[in-house]
């Protein structure tokens, strides 16, 4: 009896401890910078980060609409017009349609691998929203390894693609999975090496610290000229390749492979894949903005800046608006590229990644290193 009572006591005590526990967990994992150790603060911060996550997801509804509209204009069409004002709700209608479609899976598919690849991709995408900086001190989490963390959670994509391609038990899926994994691996390495230049300058993996350094000393795109400019171009190409956007959408080349590794996915699974693709692109655009284009910085610092501009630079709302404008310019750029260029061939493309982009990224790192060495000396 007494043991039961003590057990109940323990459980009650445990329930009372939940806020405290939440605080500890938040402190440990994403919320390194949380100062006041009270539960209210922790809950506020977690609500805030939930709100930021929701904000990203809302943007994911808007960005495809913009993309479709812009693409339609460039092709001389009108794009979605019927659902909602200017067709704004088109994507919601699409999602509703996907959700209510029949949930099919090929009979010979491997159930475990088929589902696992979807779950892995979805989880890693949602996880990657955490450390994105939206304004000074406004980020889901201010973790010290933010950039590395995003790469870490994205590193699950190649195995997930291969697994999904294999599990669908279809030759299109399998070949598509191979291509996707090869492409991701070939472009992940130049991407990471080009980022190293930024790390050398910022002395930190923390995305907020990276933006703060740009706020103080100038955006990275024009520093260590031409080292970081090269890194910017490489990173841009590599991230287009990583997200399998149109000039590089080799894994899902419709004419050859139907839909690549996602041929057999339908219904809600296909919906999740669409979501994952768009958010992968979105996060990559944000990374480009944060790493090279000043992040939430309103305008690059220069001498003789007027006072109102300096005030504006310190205003968090202005910072928030600035980064959003930059992101949507990025979305526009990606759409523009999509409508303009034809698709590459797989072997040329992989070779280009290993034999051109990789040495170039090493070269850019060397230039940045030389600048940094001079700076130290």
């Amino acid at each position, binding site marked *: 009896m007494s043991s039961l009572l003590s057990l109940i006591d323990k459980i009650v005590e445990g329930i009372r401890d939940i806020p405290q526990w939440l605080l500890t*967990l938040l402190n*440990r994992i994403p919320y390194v910078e949380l100062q006041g150790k009270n539960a209210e603060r922790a809950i506020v911060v977690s609500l805030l980060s939930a709100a930021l996550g929701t904000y990203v997801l809302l943007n994911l509804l808007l960005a495809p609409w913009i993309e479709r509209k812009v693409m339609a204009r460039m092709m001389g069409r009108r794009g979605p017009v019927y659902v909602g004002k200017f067709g704004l709700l088109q994507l919601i209608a699409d999602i509703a349609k996907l959700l209510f479609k029949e949930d099919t899976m090929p009979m010979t598919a491997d159930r475990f691998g088929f589902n696992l690849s979807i779950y892995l991709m979805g989880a890693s995408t949602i996880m990657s929203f955490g450390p994105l900086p939206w304004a000074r001190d406004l980020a889901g989490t201010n973790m*010290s390894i933010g950039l590395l963390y995003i790469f*870490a959670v994205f*590193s699950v994509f190649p195995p997930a693609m291969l697994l999904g391609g294999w599990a669908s038990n279809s030759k299109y899926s399998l070949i598509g999975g191979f291509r996707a*994994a090869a492409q991701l691996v070939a472009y*992940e390495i130049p991407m990471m090496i080009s980022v190293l230049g930024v790390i050398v300058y910022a002395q930190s993996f923390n995305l907020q610290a990276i933006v703060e350094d740009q706020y103080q000393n100038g955006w990275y795109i024009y520093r260590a000229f031409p080292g970081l400019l090269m890194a910017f171009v490489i990173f841009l190409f590599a991230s287009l390749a990583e997200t399998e956007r149109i000039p590089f959408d080799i894994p899902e080349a419709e004419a050859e492979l139907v839909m690549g590794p996602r041929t057999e996915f339908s219904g809600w699974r296909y919906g999740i894949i669409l979501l994952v693709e768009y958010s992968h692109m979105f996060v990559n655009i944000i990374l480009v903005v944060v790493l090279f284009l000043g992040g939430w910085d309103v305008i690059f610092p220069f001498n003789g800046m007027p006072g109102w501009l300096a005030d504006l630079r310190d205003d968090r709302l202005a910072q928030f608006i600035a980064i959003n404008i930059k992101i949507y310019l990025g979305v526009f750029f990606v759409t523009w590229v999509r409508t303009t260029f034809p698709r590459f061939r797989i072997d040329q493309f992989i070779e280009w990644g290993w034999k051109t982009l990789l040495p170039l990224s090493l070269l850019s790192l060397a230039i940045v290193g030389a600048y940094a060495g001079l700076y130290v000396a």
Partner: protein
Amino acid sequence: MGWFLEFNMIVIIIFTLFMAFGALRTDKVMKAAAYLLLTLWGVAFAYLFLGSEYVFAIQLIVYGGGIVVLFLFSVLLTGQEEFQMDKEFVWNNLVQILIALLLFFTLTVLMLDVFGGYELTGNELVVLNETQDLTQTLATALFTNYNYVLPILGILLLSAMLGSIKIAIREEEL
């Protein structure tokens, strides 16, 4: 209040061990690699609970992203689909299971005997230190004390790269 964290850790332990056992038990090679991936993620979360974010990220990038992809590629390139398995797994491997259990109990008893109730005495560095960036500490140690060891790791990777390219490439096509 630590009980909830401990509960999470227990969940991670059970998850990791189940996945590890699944990697040895499943009948498809691809699935074994997938289970390995999940095991590695579980281990990575254990690193996070130990306060070592950097090792967590490296574990995911190199192990989760690199080694598992190598496994999947080589499995697909060797074209093998299924393991040749004996159906009566448990009964045929009774001795081995007993050996493994004995090993586990010996090891656990010994380690808990020596390290059980280990309290953090001096090293506040590693526990929830908010003033110092742990990644920075790690980097400082890596580039002061261990700076002559890093190039040797580079030599190792060079030799691994040379050897694996030479052995895996099809030379008749060159």
